[in-house]
């Protein structure tokens, strides 16, 4: 079977996801301006420990090999280690994303003692100024301290996870050097206009020239740099496709479970339109994955729409569904960052009031400076 045939099979969906993301909580100590899940405050409907364990039992039965845990900040959950240990005990490896705030020397030791565990520390700049502008004041130092704790504890190769923006794209070499220095592996992913990212998209998303820069950098340095296949829209730039399956896996090989158990097509589309059901529904996660109307629909052949006549469609597959959705572009239209330039026209055509607003906003209320004066 050729790779093309395999990809066609995968588009029809699998019996269980290959890559499942589970945001454990909407609570977060940070308020990153591009947060995909608009996290901040805990949702009172959050899955309980027992409910979470029941989901893990199901994933075990489905032979899901590993899960990607995120949030919010997943380590905020009091049962974080309990769930981690339960998952690994059931043969489900865990990779979790964290801002590092809760990794002290003792926790680093505990994490280092666990098998089948990967950790991704989020960092969006190789200096505090660049990073903190996006992730909040002090977050650079926090991440670096956590990385140091992991190194001291002998955790081994953790990951440094970077969302590529207009402001850190020139630091890719420095990120790679930093990772090498820490005995870590670099992971870079694409910025999405999802969650609070919808508000920061226009200021943060890489320019056309920078798209080319990312592609060229990945062709040169891509070996041993993880991308979660997130840059497949760049494949139209050259003969050499970037490593990976080059397809949108939403609802086909990928999905998201959010903190209250709702199941979405992917981590970038927390919106009713892409909600397939809930793990709390009759039949649980398996039923949603196998039977939901949304996922069934996503597994049917998709129309190339406006991109059908473009010679690059096979290479870029029309790009990212979520990026189109939250910029108001029709799902069969071009990606807003289409390297052929069609995205800019489409973005302009979709006036901003047409773009659907992200849902499930858990952002903390904005602080109003209060002056306590004396009479």
């Amino acid at each position, binding site marked *: 079977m050729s790779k093309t045939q395999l990809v066609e099979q995968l588009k029809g969906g699998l019996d269980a996801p*290959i890559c499942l993301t589970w945001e454990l909580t909407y609570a977060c100590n940070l308020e990153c301006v591009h947060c995909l899940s608009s996290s901040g405050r805990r949702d009172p409907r959050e899955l309980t420990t027992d409910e979470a364990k029941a989901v893990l039992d199901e994933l075990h039965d489905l032979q899901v090999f590993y899960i990607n845990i995120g949030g919010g900040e997943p380590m905020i959950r009091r049962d974080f280690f309990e769930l981690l240990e339960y998952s690994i005990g059931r043969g489900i490896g865990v990779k979790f994303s964290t801002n590092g705030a809760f990794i002290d020397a003792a926790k680093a030791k505990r994490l280092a003692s666990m098998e089948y565990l990967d950790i991704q520390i989020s960092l969006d700049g190789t200096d505090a100024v660049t990073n903190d502008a996006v992730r909040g004041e002090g977050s650079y130092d926090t991440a670096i301290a956590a990385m140091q704790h992991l190194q001291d504890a002998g955790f081994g190769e953790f990951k440094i996870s970077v969302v590529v923006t207009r402001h850190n794209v020139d630091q890719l070499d420095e990120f790679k050097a930093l990772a090498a220095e820490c005995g870590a592996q670099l992971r870079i992913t694409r910025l999405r206009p999802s969650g609070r990212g919808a508000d920061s998209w226009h200021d943060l998303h890489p320019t056309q020239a920078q798209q080319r820069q990312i592609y060229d950098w990945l062709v040169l340095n891509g070996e041993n740099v993880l991308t979660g296949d997130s840059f497949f829209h760049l494949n139209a730039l050259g003969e050499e496709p970037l490593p990976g399956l080059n397809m949108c896996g939403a609802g086909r090989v990928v999905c998201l479970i959010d903190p209250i158990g709702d199941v979405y097509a992917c981590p970038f589309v927390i919106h009713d339109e892409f909600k397939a059901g809930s793990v709390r529904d009759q039949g649980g996660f398996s039923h949603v994955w196998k039977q939901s109307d949304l996922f069934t629909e996503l597994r049917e052949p998709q129309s190339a729409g406006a991109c059908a006549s473009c010679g690059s469609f096979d290479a870029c597959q029309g790009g990212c569904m979520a990026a189109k959705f939250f910029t108001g572009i029709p799902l069969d239209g071009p990606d807003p960052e289409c390297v052929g330039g069609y995205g800019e026209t489409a973005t302009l055509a979709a006036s901003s009031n047409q773009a659907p607003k992200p849902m499930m906003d858990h952002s903390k209320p904005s602080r109003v400076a209060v002056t306590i004066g004396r009479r």
Partner: protein
Amino acid sequence: MLDATLALHPQVALRPEPFGALAYHYGNRKLIFLKHPDVVRVVRSLDGTATVAETLAACEIDQARWPSFEQALTNLQTSEMLQ
């Protein structure tokens, strides 16, 4: 290759899929697609046999197809799925 004794790495899990199977190595975190049900059958049968040739024969794989199976098994060995 034909004379080699191979077995599935103890840290590898196979998940049946319509196209064949997914193989996941819990140690090196590699995920590999076994893109033909016959390859899956051969891989699952390695454990009970002394050599690759014996496995292929036991699985009734046509000799004309042996070179492609040798290639597939070599690739799996390179990614440490087999040892």
